[in-house]
């Protein structure tokens, strides 16, 4: 037995489709831009405050900092303002240089990961690490922020230079969990392989650029002369 014939719906015209899609897109774009404009200053303030706290966390020996940047020739220069990836030299209470705090970023599993790490001139090593921004998978990739054995990598992660002083003696690499044998290796996380490898790549790329400049210019910035800082 056949039922009643289905009602034929008129196909939507191309103009109606374009009008709807473009109209909704413009409506959404307007709302997002308005919200961004309204909150951008406040978010920036919060980020600066968070960055200052994170700097103190990764390099607790520093009581004041000075913003620096990499000049065109690869040397270190003072920076008048901090960009998206700021870098600071950290000074102790006696105004002597104790280390550097550097922000770096790279692609993780889901999105860009932004990290902050501390470099110690005394130890030629990365001695502090913190994730600034990450959208890695909850429960998997985000374990790089919490796993004690992974964070223990940053008690002293070797970043010493080769004899020529223009490159890392050994690239920072992530190895499988439990297989770390060298001080420049990151003990990875099973279940967060891509994210822990991404952290290794981010640190290796950033340290390869920054550590030669820091070591090459350490003498010039050994003592803090400017009064401002955190």
């Amino acid at each position, binding site marked *: 037995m056949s039922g009643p014939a289905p009602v034929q*719906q008129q196909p*939507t015209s191309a103009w*109606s*489709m374009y*009008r*709807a*899609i473009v*109209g*909704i*897109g413009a*409506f*959404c774009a307007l*709302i*997002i831009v308005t*919200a*961004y404009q*309204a*909150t951008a200053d*406040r*978010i920036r303030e*919060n*980020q600066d*405050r*968070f960055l200052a706290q994170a700097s103190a966390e990764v390099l607790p020996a520093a009581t004041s900092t000075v913003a620096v940047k990499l000049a065109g020739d690869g040397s270190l220069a003072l920076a008048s303002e901090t960009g998206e990836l700021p870098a600071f030299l950290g000074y102790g209470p006696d105004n002597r240089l104790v280390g550097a705090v550097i922000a770096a970023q790279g692609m993780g599993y*889901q999105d860009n990961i932004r990290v902050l790490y501390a470099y110690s001139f005394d130890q030629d090593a990365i001695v502090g690490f913190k994730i600034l921004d*990450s*959208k*890695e*998978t*909850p*429960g998997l990739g*985000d374990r790089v922020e919490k796993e004690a054995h992974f964070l223990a990598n940053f008690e002293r992660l070797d970043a010493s230079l080769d004899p020529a002083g223009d490159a890392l003696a050994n690239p920072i690499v992530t190895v499988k969990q439990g297989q770390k044998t060298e001080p420049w290796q990151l003990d990875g996380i099973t279940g967060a392989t891509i994210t822990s490898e991404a952290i290794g790549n981010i640190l290796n790329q950033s340290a390869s650029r920054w550590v030669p400049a820091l070591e090459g210019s350490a003498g010039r910035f050994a003592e803090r002369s400017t009064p401002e800082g955190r």
Partner: protein
Amino acid sequence: MPGKQLTPTDEFVKGLWRENPVFIQVLGMCPALAVSNTAINALTMGLATTFVLVMSGISVSTLRRFIPREARIVSFICIIATFVTVVDYVIQAVSLELSRALGAFIALIVVNCLILGRAEAFASKNTIGRAVLDALGMGVGFTAALLWIGVLREILGAGTLFGVALFPDGFQTWTVMVLPSGGFLAMALWLLLVNWIRDRQEKSAKAAQGVTR
């Protein structure tokens, strides 16, 4: 045949208990289990979802005659994603710590089936007023459910409520409650209680009507 039209009050109230999104419809389980480890996280996620529900409900209801049937899902998702972006900016402006604690789950509000479900099943077929009442009711019901789970987990798992210590130093916390498995345990306990109450209510109603099983 179209169903009976609810009164505006019923439209709001239905999401609180009779059609509660978490305990009855069992929707939006991902944030309900993942970010309910503390009461403040649960409350923030609930309020953020309520905001997105209400604003997307208003937008979808307003534009319902303008959106062709074939383009409705992509349009609804675009609208929902817009308000999720707005709520993400607002949370970052209020507290970066809170934004970091909620992490990717704020962005994942976009794929909370509760929001797309209300946009498709209700807001696209009703007036703005009814869409707002429905979204508010569902949002408050969702927030309350998350809060109950969060309160239970934080008290038992950390011995605190909204970060305030409730017990003396010797209190042994049930750490499992703030871990992912604690989410399932807390959810199961609340579902047990809610279903028991509903069962009793149904029996009472039938007894009042003189119907026996």
